[in-house]
């Protein structure tokens, strides 16, 4: 069973709620190895997404994703704004023609999102960034042969593991890289927000 536009919108609202809930946690993570704004940046961006969703009714899943992309680009700022913005924009393009998203569409969207993030941010796996969460998520979604919900669930599990894997790493990209060795021992905030978003989308899709 595929995700309809309404399902996608519901899932995006759920993601916004989760970002809101975890704002302080993301701030704290960024305070340890960055500049303490990731949680607030994401909160501001997803609060704006909710306002936009309240005002507009996207006609397709792709249009819903694009709405998220442009809103994040114009309200988040920092590294996360363009990166997540690009991710949602590429995901939108990848599913441009679909009325409903199945597992395969989800996998394609995630792959496009990752490619966008890497194209913009030039990070590789192991650099201690959101790429460390998104890369295994893309692989897991690709090997899942089930529904959209199943693909997202697999992606969320993998992203959570990927996020944890950033803890021992020494950052090579983003603000944490200024710390050199002192960045090791901390969870990367962007990988955590990626895992949180995917988990929220997966949970919402499971209920749809």
């Amino acid at each position: 069973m595929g995700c309809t536009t309404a399902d996608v919108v519901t899932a995006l609202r759920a993601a916004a709620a989760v970002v809101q809930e975890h704002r302080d946690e993301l701030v704290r993570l960024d305070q340890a190895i960055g500049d303490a704004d990731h949680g607030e940046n994401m909160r501001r961006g997803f609060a704006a997404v909710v306002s936009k969703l309240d005002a507009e009714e996207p006609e397709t899943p792709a249009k819903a994703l694009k709405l998220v992309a442009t809103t994040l680009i114009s309200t988040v700022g920092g590294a996360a704004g363009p990166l997540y913005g690009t991710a949602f924009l590429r995901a939108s393009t990848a599913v441009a023609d679909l009325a409903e998203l199945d597992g395969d569409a989800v996998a394609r969207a995630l792959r496009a999102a990752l490619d966008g993030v890497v194209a913009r941010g030039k990070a590789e796996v192991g650099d201690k960034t959101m790429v460390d969460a998104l890369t295994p998520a893309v692989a897991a979604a690709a090997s899942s042969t089930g529904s959209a919900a199943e693909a997202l669930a697999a992606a969320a599990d993998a992203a959570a593991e990927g996020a944890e894997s950033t803890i021992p790493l020494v950052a090579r990209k983003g603000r944490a890289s200024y710390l050199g060795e002192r960045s090791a021992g901390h969870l990367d905030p962007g990988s955590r927000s990626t895992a949180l978003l995917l988990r929220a989308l997966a949970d919402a899709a499971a209920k749809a």
Partner: protein
Amino acid sequence: MKKIINDPETVVRDALRGMRAAHPDLLTVYEDPAVVVRADAPVRGKVVVISGGGAGHEPLHGGFVGRGMLDAACPGAVFTSPTSDQVLDAVTKTDGGAGALLIVKNYTGDVLNFEMAGELAETEVRSVVIDDDVAVKDSLYTAGRRGVGGTVLLEKIVGAAAERGDDLAACEELAKRVISSVRSMGLALSSCTVPHVGSPSFELADDEMEIGIGIHGEPGRQRVPVGPASEMVAALLDPILEDLPFASGDRVLLFTNSMGGTPLIELYLAHGIAEQLLADRGITVERRLVGPYITSLEMQGMSLTLLKVDDEMLELWDAPVHTPALRWGV
């Protein structure tokens, strides 16, 4: 957290309103998106020079908008780079038909957002990325060095070049020359507190200081016991001198900067020590700037910036400037 604010969510907007009220003759201040534009923009035929970055570093960048320096500045949320929308809007509002030079401090967020704006702009846009912080080890495989104090000098010098009529290519080339000749390093005696966080970005004991801090409350590279001012100044100056390197016979501009909470009496004291150390090494200080020009909210601490100058840079440094924070010759 004790601050003179109403609400962490509206700090930047409220401060912009104060800037608008304080400088009606110099600035036009837009709120949505937030852009500070020189009052006489657009100036036809002039290359526009635009910068921006997270708020919390005041007077950087909005305080440097005006004749002879920036055409516009885009303030992001506190310590968060502006969005590409803001940058694009700044380009559009100031476009004088001769192109735009974007001055970008080297942080992933700034680089990405300015880059996206550049891609979308309809006028010709060039970007230069400043990365003068010697506290950060440079490498091809990392985000590289941060942009810090050198930004102020870069904006003044390139702003003057644009004002005298240099074209976009010339401004870009000059900017690159300045970037390759400037180095900085800072230290903190206390952390700052980001309004939307409410607690200090890092904790320092009563006898500790943090060497090699950035301007966003990021921890530095090294935590050491507080020593006398002469040791602090040497701890900043030595890595700067070694890095470029600066050598006997060089002519420099010395910029002694407060991180926001360090008062002028300490800053002058540190400046005097730096001048003495430079004199001892046979380096000639041709110009100096002393004050809080690139800050980190209320952080106590300082940074030193050294620019190896040539005659053209000196002439452009001395050229008239009329902004809220820097003014001379007019």
